[in-house]
């Protein structure tokens, strides 16, 4: 998405100030200063030596440095990215259960093998209906029941449409989990090495997780702020997942960039369980004119394939 810099107007202003100061080029240096750790022992007025992208060492007065705010605190995470309404479109015609979205998401969010923010279901509405693979993230509903029922405001809906969880506020009552009709939420049932990650906690990264609290897919706002796509979008080899901004009416899967409204109308996009009235931000394109037969999805280890044994289609397949 090349609108990333506009995304972060504030950050860019801060950033421009630094670039003027150091006389560096604006485009490449974006993250240079952010990665320099703050040294509390530096006296005010002291000069700091920095490495510019073209390999030159430059001296900068320390108090003049504006650190790029990459870290979003739990408080700050309540503010959505301004003038955005994020949507996701998942093209079921292209999904073959490659599970790359799942794996990359798990890696990025430090999730143990069995815990998946993004799940791939094998759906079959009835015995006669066609089976299809359905990747399912959190739907980031516009009328999120999980947010309504939370007694302490640990989960919240932002102006950009994203529903986040602050695991420093969450008391772990699990009411949101019973409230969510899409099974999007998971509980951290026990302490595990996956929960010990040496980085400051932000609801925007959902890392590190915390025992006794709830977590779920966060739409990767940290990536969006960096002008990148959520992990599942970039990971998908088939370009199944489109991500974008409903206000700008644009979604992209990395290969192609399309008008969101056009995509939805021309391909008869729908939202899962629309009748529940939760108004999800995730749309599906029906699995018509498929690129792969459903069977291609079973190209997976046994413990994954075992999951789908109760689907009528799989039962029938085993019988034959």
């Amino acid at each position, binding site marked *: 998405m090349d609108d990333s810099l506009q995304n972060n107007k504030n950050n860019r202003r801060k950033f421009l100030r630094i670039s003027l100061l150091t006389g560096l080029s604006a485009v490449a240096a974006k993250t240079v200063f952010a990665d320099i750790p703050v040294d509390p022992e530096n006296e005010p007025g002291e000069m700091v030596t920095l490495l510019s992208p073209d390999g030159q060492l430059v001296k900068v007065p320390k108090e003049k440095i504006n650190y790029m705010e990459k870290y979003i605190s739990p408080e700050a995470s309540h503010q959505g990215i301004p003038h955005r309404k994020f949507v996701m479109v998942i093209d079921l015609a292209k999904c073959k259960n490659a599970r790359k979205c799942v794996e990359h998401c798990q890696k990025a969010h430090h999730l143990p093998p069995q815990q998946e923010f993004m799940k791939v279901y094998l759906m079959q509405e009835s015995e006669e209906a066609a089976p299809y693979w359905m990747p399912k993230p959190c739907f980031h509903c516009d009328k999120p029941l999980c947010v309504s029922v939370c007694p302490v405001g640990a989960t919240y809906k932002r102006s950009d449409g994203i529903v986040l969880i602050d695991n420093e506020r969450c008391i*772990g009552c699990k009411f949101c989990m019973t409230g969510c009709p899409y099974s999007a939420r998971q509980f951290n049932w026990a302490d595990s090495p996956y929960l010990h990650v040496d980085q400051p906690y932000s609801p925007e990264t959902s890392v590190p997780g915390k025992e006794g*609290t709830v977590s779920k897919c966060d739409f990767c706002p940290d990536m969006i702020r960096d002008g990148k796509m959520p992990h599942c979008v970039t990971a998908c080899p088939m370009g199944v997942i489109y991500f974008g901004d409903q206000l700008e009416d644009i979604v992209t899967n990395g290969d192609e960039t399309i008008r969101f409204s056009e995509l939805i109308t021309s391909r008869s996009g729908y939202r899962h369980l629309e009748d529940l009235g939760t108004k999800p931000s995730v749309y599906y394109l029906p699995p018509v004119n498929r690129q792969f037969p459903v069977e291609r999805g079973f190209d997976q280890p046994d413990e994954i394939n075992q999951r789908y044994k109760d689907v009528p289609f799989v039962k029938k397949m085993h019988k034959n």
Partner: protein
Amino acid sequence: MESNKRKQELLKEFLPQLEKTSFAWFAWVAFLLIAIFFAIYALILQILRGHIITGMRDNVVWGVYIVNFIFFMGISYAGALVSGSMHLFKTSWRGPILRIAELTTIVALFIGPLYILLCIGRLDRLPFLFMYPRIQSPITWDVIAITTDLFGCLIYLYLSFIRDFALMRDSKDIKLPKWRMNIYKALALGYQDTPTQRNRIKKVTDIMSAMIIAIAIIVYSVLAWIFSVTLQPGWHSTIFGPYFVIAAIFSGAGVILILMRVFRSIYHLEKYITKKHFVGVGMILMILSMFFAYFTFSEYLTKWYGSKKLDDNLIQILFTRYFWHFVFSNYVGTLLPIIIMGIPRFRTINSITFAAVVAVVALWVNRYLIVVPTLETPYMPIQDIRPDWILYSATWIEWSLTFGGIAMFCFLFTLAAKIVPIIPVSEVADAELEMSEVLAHGQDSHEATRTKSIIKHAAIKKEDHDQ
């Protein structure tokens, strides 16, 4: 005064229960304490190792803990409703069982909320419920409701105790350590049984008994709404509020019957708690079991007949995996009280108690069937290979905390019965006096009460005049 004399006589009869502590009592308490400490051990393990050691997982996020929560809260509200309405409608035979009902209310109310705490992943953040409350959340409604109920019930219970505390303070026969007598003295709040005081306490108790009924209905409906506001097919039901209220009084009436039977035997209360009382409360149990059966039937009929896909899934597993649970809780549990109470020949104290035990257990299972199967049939199919993630089964941790709660209930009840007479002495003595007046003057009871109230008013006026 005649009534005072009778009261002291009555109290004397009950004093041995307060004064003497038998070996059996200590053994019983020791047994309960062991169960409680075992539960505490289980709780410590749960806190240290996390909720992974329970049977709860991402689909069935609430298990027997929430079942126990509903169960104990139900018993509590039932105690309040039964004692409140008996008081309000001046049921003539209420006297001897009133205190059992009131104690049930308060003891269960202490235990119920503990179970919701067991479901909470981070107990250290409990103050957040008060620091960052969100009024949109039914849990916040429940926090407000339960606190209100707790205060209301404590006031109501205390009001019913004051006269007996005063009696014990004034008793000359009582052989109790000085510190205990001092406590009674403090708790009696200087009550001297003057007509003004008596009238006041009656008025306040009347108001509180009416309020306690309203509070109990609202509070238990709020608890039901925690479930019915969600979109879960087994919970999203408009009748859940009244359904839960009826189920609560049903189970509570059962618990009161069991306790009546227990105290009747161990305290030899055959003279006070008679078959009349068992039949009386048994009738309440029967009527409620009819209501409960009716609500249960209409709840499941609509799910089955209309057969939406998800409702159908739920009905499917209720009639396959949970078939015997379903039969026991919704057929046996409702029909047995109706049969035993409905056919006069079957109405004995023991059979009524048996019906009560079955009803109470059935109601517990009924709550289990409301909570667990619903969570096992979510909107998104459960596609997992971990068996414990697919089906819920409670672990020993959950069971020991369940039995710990029951032990706690028995323990608190045992202690309470050591502190105050299990029969409300003043209430019973007054009722006796009223009855004897009626018999002596051959008036109907209505007239008797009217005459009494005229006398009372005259006395109050005289007293005011004297002052």
